[in-house]
């Protein structure tokens, strides 16, 4: 558990930096804003204690919030996503469970597994985020469209990251 800590801290900082200074400034098609920082939650080890998952999610969301001027918004969406993670992991578990010493990455469990796992959690996160942002349900389908469109881009970025950075 301890030996994966430095790597995770660096990943945390790098992802927040990329999110705040690069992805938040992308103005593509007027509606799309990918939120790739959730990759941090996706890649935490299987054995991460559940309470730590929530605390880490709050810290991550709050850091992004601080830089975006939207207190509580990203925190709330990210905490919801972290709450759902154990259930999603259980649902997609192989017959014998996850082997010790492996991580939730494409490298260990294949791209199909990783895509399904990442997509579900990212869509949950984005739906929560976009509906909390507008905070009402009129324009329901417009918000849905924006959430799904941005989810698609986030999923592409997250899966690409598996190809380029975590290839080994």
């Amino acid at each position: 558990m301890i030996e994966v800590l430095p790597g995770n801290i660096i990943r945390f900082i790098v992802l927040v930096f990329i999110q705040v200074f690069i992805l938040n400034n992308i103005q593509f098609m007027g509606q799309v804003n990918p939120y790739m920082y959730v990759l941090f939650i996706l890649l935490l080890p299987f054995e991460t204690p559940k309470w730590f998952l929530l605390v880490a999610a709050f810290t991550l969301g709050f850091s992004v919030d601080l830089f975006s001027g939207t207190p509580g918004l990203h925190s709330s969406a990210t905490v919801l996503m972290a709450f759902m993670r154990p259930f999603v992991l259980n649902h997609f578990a192989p017959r014998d469970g996850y082997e010790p010493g492996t991580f939730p990455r494409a490298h260990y469990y294949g791209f199909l597994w990783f895509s399904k796992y990442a997509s579900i959690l990212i869509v949950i996160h984005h739906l929560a985020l976009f509906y909390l942002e507008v905070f009402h349900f009129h324009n329901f389908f417009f918000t849905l469209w924006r959430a799904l469109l941005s989810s698609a881009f986030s999923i592409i970025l997250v899966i690409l990251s598996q190809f380029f950075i975590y290839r080994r």
Partner: protein
Amino acid sequence: MQNLIRFILKYHFILLFVLIQSLSLTLMFQHNYYQKSLAVNTVRNIKGYINGRIFSFREYLKLRELNEKLLNENYQLRNQLMNSYLSVVAEPFSEFDSVYSKQYSYIAAKIVSNSVNKQLNYITIDKGGIHGVEPEMGIVSSEGIVGIVKGVSNHYSTVIPVININLRISARIKDSGYFGSLFWDGKNPVRASLVDIPHHAKMNTGDKVITSGYSAIFPEGIKIGTITGYEIYGGNFYNATVELSTDFRNLSHVYVIKNHFREEQIELENTIQHD
């Protein structure tokens, strides 16, 4: 007691989730307190610095276009100068007349970060408290209205632009003089909606929309946009679409407006409310 501890241990995941989620939602609803806190000011300074570096590079690439815009504005301002007019009356109008007291000052600022693709868009500018910027000051560009200052740190300020679903601005139709309220519907950074104009007012597409000057934030007559379409809703009011004159996707230099009589106006208005 033992049962309670056992209960908490058993359901700690859900309990902690509810706790943290309520904390997040509370933070969301106390947005205004948050804007003033120290941590936010520090982060705003860091963010302003880094974004300023990125923006100054992008600005370099846009120099030609910027020069053209400034040239155009200079040309318009020059046309308004007193010494480009020939006096036709015996006593020429004096600029420094004790009858007139200066009401609005302008502070030039550069944008260091900007977004147009969210519902709650914000702009950061490179002027802050030490330059005389205060919350609730108006921001305009050479093309028209931009927004209102929300939070201020020493060297930077955040601005709520017109394209933020939480901002409402008092607006007036230039020709007919009727006023209503302008807000952004969150869809397209080029268009906003103008509502509350009574249906007996005359309205045409192509009418100019300007600031009303009622709010003590903006001077009267600053360009907001042009009406491109309208419909009557609820039988009594117009719902008009306004094409904004400011292009938020391509904005780099703005002016902060300081109203020297704002406090006086607000004080007066407050005394009436207290009665």
